[in-house]
């Protein structure tokens, strides 16, 4: 993977949400949803972005597609900063980058037959005439395992898994190169989840797609990803390959996360690291390392100095002052 060329480079991405308050409403605080995140997605790979709720992983995906206005930083798609794009250039880029949402029901317009939802992108971009568009919609449907006759049905007539496949078809029909998958299976039952994950893998293989897979379920992320980035409170704490993540996690948070996941194997008796307390509010994140109040190995330094994301081994970056201990 390391030899592949970078498709997307995210550099110091920052996204703050203002909090209105006071007697005369004004911005009294900022939710630091994403605070200086950098990573690279290589062509043809799947990068998993994992973290607990409120860590900013979804915001990263949405901001990369400019569904949210960034507060700072750059996102380069094949070298060009997409935050600089406007008008037709931005519209053209939209064809290259697509998104699949978490809630497959909410992400489909309930008033449209799904064929029209899927074909909407083609219509927006004026691609082909009605007939050609229809054919492409049918093709996209068949790629996700749905039939021609499904095109005239409405979202409420489908099961959760089918709806998520429709969501994928809508992204596919544009022939994108990059897709952000925003928690695409977390609303689904396990047996359905497997089906969608398989489809995603097949499509990537057949169409040469690049994925950013955002999820909170580490097992799912590990299953589908080539590399994994772990986020905590708006920061990336560790980036590594899938194998290294499980075998040798270097950040105490990653270790805790791994050990907190219940394993479907009753014979496995593990020494678990159970983190104390709750995730602090991104409104007022802790000084220094954001993880230090919950960290089992925190020292004085951690509450003062923020650790940088550094490469300890080839392709394995970690943001912890004491990560060397786990090498």
């Amino acid at each position, binding site marked *: 993977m390391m030899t592949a060329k970078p498709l997307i480079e995210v550099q110091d991405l920052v996204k703050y949400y203002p909090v209105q308050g006071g007697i005369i409403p004004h911005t009294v605080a900022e939710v630091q949803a994403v605070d200086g995140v950098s990573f690279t997605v290589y062509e043809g790979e799947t990068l998993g972005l994992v973290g607990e709720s409120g860590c900013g992983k979804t915001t990263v995906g949405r901001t990369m597609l400019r569904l949210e206005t960034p507060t700072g930083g750059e996102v380069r798609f094949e070298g060009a900063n997409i935050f600089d794009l406007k008008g037709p250039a931005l519209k053209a880029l939209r064809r290259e980058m697509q998104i699949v949402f978490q809630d497959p029901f909410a992400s489909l317009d309930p008033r449209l037959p799904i064929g029209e939802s899927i074909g909407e992108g083609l219509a927006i971009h004026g691609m082909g005439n009605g007939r050609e568009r229809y054919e492409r919609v049918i093709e996209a449907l068949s790629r996700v395992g749905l039939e021609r006759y499904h095109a005239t049905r409405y979202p409420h007539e489908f099961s959760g898994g089918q709806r998520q496949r429709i969501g994928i078809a809508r992204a596919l029909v544009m022939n994108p190169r990059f897709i952000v998958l925003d928690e695409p299976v977390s609303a689904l039952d396990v047996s359905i989840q497997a*089906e969608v994950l398989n489809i995603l893998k097949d499509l990537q293989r057949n169409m040469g797609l690049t994925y950013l897979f955002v999820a909170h379920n580490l097992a799912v992320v*590990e299953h589908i990803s080539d590399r994994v980035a772990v986020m905590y409170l708006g920061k990336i704490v560790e980036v590594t390959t899938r194998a290294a993540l*499980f075998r040798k996690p270097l950040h105490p948070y990653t270790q805790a996360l791994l*050990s907190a996941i219940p394993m479907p194997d*009753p*014979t496995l008796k593990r020494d678990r690291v159970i983190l104390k307390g709750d995730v602090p509010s991104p409104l007022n994140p802790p000084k220094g390392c954001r993880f230090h109040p919950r960290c089992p190995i925190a020292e004085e330094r951690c509450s003062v100095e923020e650790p940088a994301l550094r490469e300890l081994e080839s392709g394995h970056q970690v943001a912890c002052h004491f990560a060397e201990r786990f090498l």
Partner: protein
Amino acid sequence: MPAKSAAPNGNAPILEVRDLKTYFFTEDGVVKAVDGVDFYVKHGEVLGLVGESGCGKSVTSLSILRLIDRPGEIVGGEVFFEGENLLDRPLDSMVDIRGDRISMIFQQPKSSLNPVFKVGSQIVEVFQIHDEKMDKAVAWEKAVALLKRVGIPDPESKAHAYPHQLSGGQAQRVMIAMAMALQPELLIADEPTTALDVTIQAQILDLIRELNHETNTAVILITHDLGVIAEMADRVAVMYAGQIVEEVSVEGLFKNGLHPYTQGLIKSIPVLGSVQEQLNTIPGSVPNLIDLPAGCRFASRCPARVEHGLSICEEHMPNLLEVAPGHEVRCWLYEDAAGHTAPLKPGKGKKKK
């Protein structure tokens, strides 16, 4: 139904559910959410009730306490708790059982607490419901002590907090404190960690485990997460479309799950640290609970049926039968038409390559 009057090894179960049926009479038809469920829970054990959404596991748990609201109705079956059939009681007297001898915690801890009352007084309420003479100040002391026991930091002041001031994990701890207040004999935990983050989930599961050991309270743990089951349960009942399809010890389930649905479910989850190219899938979808098939409810999705060319699956419902000590399955692969358990006899139209 073959009766299972007592669990093996003479230990009488604390709770035994027999042929429980809870239907919902909706405008579209009768939804058979729970349709003949049998299981038992022994003293002090953790029974995992696992299944996918809509399989009836939550309705089952609510039926035990008879908390089913219209248009739902318990239409049949028996729920023996310490030998007494709860369904025979006058509904009014269920309040003596609820919260005192059997208590419940739910999936959405924050919305399960009343937003306009302090959490302390919501715990106090439990004491006062079941002991009207208890002094308010005494009850408050006990509530604070409980909050401390479930690991709420600074319990004295947190007792004065309102639910919206708590995090999801803290709210679930409060719910647990409330449920454990009167040291019930049985705790029903309905997806207690589904709404929580993994690290918080681990804390809550640990707490439930601890309380189970400490007070010997039996637990019914309802979840869709096989990982949680493996970590927590002693025995497991697998539900599918309103029925139990398999009931076995937790080791037995993962090592030797017999029902094709159980097998499919276990193989469909990605396991951390094991690289799989493709995940197993269960084709098709759960049957409509209004219009259920005559035969086995899993038949239309069952790869084993196709593999073995069984035709009986679509015509007749198999029974939940004990195929090995403490291991029950509802499947024609392990039963013959006379209702005896039997090893699998491959059918005529066998397709195996």
